């Protein structure tokens, strides 16, 4: 939201897409949302997803 507010629409979209990507997969979803990943694993998956999307 902050990036979008600052006019960085592409960066904002990349983060949102990564969140959707990570949440959709139970293996990278955090335990409090019904997944099996730890907080660190979930965070790493987010970063990986952003890099993967380029």
């Amino acid at each position: 939201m902050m990036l979008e507010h600052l006019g960085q629409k592409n960066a904002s979209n990349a983060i949102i897409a990564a969140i959707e990507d990570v949440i959709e997969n139970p293996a990278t979803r955090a335990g409090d949302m019904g997944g099996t990943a730890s907080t660190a694993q979930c965070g790493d998956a987010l970063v990986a997803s952003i890099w993967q999307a380029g």
Partner: protein
Amino acid sequence: MMFAGALDNIKGHDAIYLGAVGFPGVPDHVSLWGLLIPIRRDLQQYVNLRPVRLLKGITSPLAGQTSTDIDFYIVRENVECEYFEIGGVLYRSTENEIVVQESVFTRHGVDGIMKYAVELAQPRPKKHLTSANINPYTAWRQTLPTRWSGLVGCYDAGTSRPEERFKCHNCGH
């Protein structure tokens, strides 16, 4: 809550990344009045924007809802309403104790929040706006529909008129 000159310290920046606020040993009113409200007021952060979207892979507590069904924003007043420090306690700790707390809505504030909501809704597919939780006993309750229509009209090109719906959660009108 904040060190001296903290507000001046953050004023020079384009954005402030505000993390989660709260600590078990600190009562809510302390962090609210000592940190959040001063930041909001001083920097005129009058919009409390809350995106609500059901993401794929998450089961909603609402039965039968999928990620295509839930996608909206809550545009909430962030500096006025009950956030005014007008009120107090009379006959404290007696049987006659009475508490008065005023909610204040200025025209400037009401117009600002409505303008933000209209502009947010314009590029969205449904262009749908719902005004919720308007206190039916305030004078603004009577003036809002007119002001709302006028404001929406300002952004309306004719064919893309947003669906307007005034729903008061308190009285149903």
